């Protein structure tokens, strides 16, 4: 390989008067560097964001939900759960389950009155969850982390805890009161009247997940039952498990024990659009950065074809001397490999340095609402870096195939004549 290496290096670092090739070599190396750097940084940020977001989401929600299945006019639907105490017992028996709670979850409309010189009247839909505060705090992170909560984290009688975005949009703050209309109604002489109660805002929480902060609020379970004219029934059971990534096996066990009258959902199912969006976004970014690498590869093809043209006579001389087509091919493949290895190596170094800077000395502020995250989360996975390196070097090698064959198939006599 020594000779091939020698010739390849000379082709790429031509010292002749027309140093065009050297410049083009540098350009094609820079192309690879840019591609690899971009890939490493973009994927590190996406991975970091995803991991961070997932962690918040998984911990914020319950890992598992159990619903009652009842037959509705259009097929099975979620119904009210009468014997929830028995279901709680069954779920708690699973060795992986660490905590459970029962809750009521209903849609409601929140209404505030306008105030003189202050906020205007507003009316917004929200999920109102009726919880057993003592039990729920063990199941979800909701209201657990004192940093994220203003005021009380767990609502008592006559109180409500609002998501931060919801509170902000309605202009509500601790101590304010809000009227909550449920879907339960009575027909009176004047028409339909929805049931409602006036509640005091006792807490405002921030989960870090924008959708949750905008849509959710909590009341005590008794409050929710009263508001919705319910007896001692709940809408679902929440459970927390030891390892959320083992959820599928746990779900199967519990489903088997509860029988067909109950339906078990996992955290992953609860947020499919979100997962899909995250995945799609990552795929999109990957495709875009792959395009950068493709451009770099085209650059290499162009460079090597130019080398082939520029060195046609030299290739003719070498062939006339008795150099084989295989050796010529190897020379050009080696040129692709050299560009690839140098470009990828520099790209990895730059990419890692870039990741370090983003993580520890982030030069710009990220508006929190974008990812619901503070700063830029960066996660460099060695496997990802290896895959990027391997892909990039393979692409560079592939890019060299056409020029290599072109060079090796030159007619010797024609090549010697070439000016």
């Amino acid at each position: 390989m020594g000779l091939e290496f020698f010739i390849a290096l000379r082709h790429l670092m031509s010292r002749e008067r027309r140093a065009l090739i050297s410049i083009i070599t540098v350009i094609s190396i820079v192309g690879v560097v840019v591609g690899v750097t971009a890939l490493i940084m973009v994927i590190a940020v996406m991975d970091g964001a995803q991991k961070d977001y997932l962690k918040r989401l998984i911990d914020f929600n319950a890992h598992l939900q159990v619903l009652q299945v009842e037959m509705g006019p259009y097929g099975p639907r979620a119904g009210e759960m009468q014997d929830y105490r028995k279901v709680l017992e069954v779920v708690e028996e699973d060795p992986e389950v660490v905590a459970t709670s029962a809750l009521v979850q209903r849609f409601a409309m929140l209404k505030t009155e306008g105030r003189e010189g202050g906020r205007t009247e507003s009316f917004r839909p929200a999920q109102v969850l009726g919880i057993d505060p003592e039990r729920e705090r063990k199941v979800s992170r909701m209201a657990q982390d004192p940093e994220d909560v203003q005021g009380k984290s767990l609502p008592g009688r006559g109180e409500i805890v609002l998501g931060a975005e919801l509170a902000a949009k309605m202009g509500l703050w601790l101590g304010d009161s809000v009227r909550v209309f449920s879907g339960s109604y009575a027909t009176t002489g004047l028409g339909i009247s929805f049931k409602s109660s006036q509640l005091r805002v006792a807490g405002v929480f921030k989960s870090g997940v924008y959708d949750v902060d905008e849509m959710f609020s909590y009341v005590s379970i008794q409050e929710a039952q009263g508001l919705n004219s319910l007896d001692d029934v709940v809408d679902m059971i929440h459970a927390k498990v030891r390892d959320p990534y083992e959820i599928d096996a746990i779900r199967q066990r519990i489903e088997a024990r509860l029988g067909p009258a109950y339906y078990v959902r996992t955290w992953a199912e609860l947020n499919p659009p979100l997962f899909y969006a995250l995945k799609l976004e990552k795929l999109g970014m990957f495709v875009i950065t792959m395009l950068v690498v493709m451009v770099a590869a085209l650059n290499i093809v162009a460079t090597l074809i130019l080398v082939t043209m520029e060195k046609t006579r030299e290739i003719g001389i070498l062939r006339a001397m008795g150099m084989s087509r295989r050796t010529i091919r190897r020379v050009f493949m080696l040129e692709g490999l050299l560009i690839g290895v140098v470009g990828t190596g520099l790209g990895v170094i730059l990419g890692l340095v870039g990741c370090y800077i983003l993580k520890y000395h982030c030069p710009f502020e990220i508006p929190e609402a974008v990812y619901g995250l503070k700063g830029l989360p960066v996660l460099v996975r060695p496997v990802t870096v290896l895959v990027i390196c391997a892909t990039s070097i393979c692409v560079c090698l592939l890019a060299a195939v056409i020029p290599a064959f072109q060079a090796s198939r030159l007619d010797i006599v024609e090549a010697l004549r070439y000016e």
Partner: protein
Amino acid sequence: MSKAGSKDRGNGAAIRVSGVTKDYHDGERVLHVLRGADLTVQRGEIVAIVGQSGSGKSTLLHLLGALDRPTKGRIEIEGEDLAALGGPALDRLRLEKIGFVFQFHHLMPGLKAWENVAMPALVARRSDTGSKAAAIDLLESVGMGERLNHRPAKLSGGEQQRVALARALMNDPHLILADEPTGNLDEEMSRQVIDLLWNVTREHGRSLVIVTHETFIAEKADRVLRLHEGRLRPA
């Protein structure tokens, strides 16, 4: 294997060409450059080929050097039929048995004189240090010991041609093919290069086919053939 073959039927012939034709297609027109050339060169023989410009001398030499294939006819080098050899075998033949000196030296511009000379040995995968030493010896023997590290552009025409000659000798070929090696040299320089060529050919019992215009060169050869209308005849 090839050596045994050459002993059996070669009768010492370095080259045996019979009925070789070469056509070039130029669009619709077909150019019959060679029209049945015959030639036998014995081992140790020096044959000069003369002919008008465009008569096909270089074409013939390229065929002899296995740089190109004939349209028809048979070419044997040391008893081996070139038509029977595949690409890699032809590569090896060129590498090991043939030293080619081109009409326009064809040195590699980016390489120093000694690197140019050493290249055939490197292509043959001989060791770097051995190749360098051999290249320097060869350059000294052609009187270029003082110009080892010059690049071709810094050498005079005669010097370039001497480097090219040293390169042709690098793998110790049995057969030297020289295409007007003194084409663009003055007479004094021509004589120097030619004397050298004769010496290295005679010294090792090599064979030489030399294409030339110059009568003084032709006179020195064992035989002179004229290429005319695609055929070779004694001149």
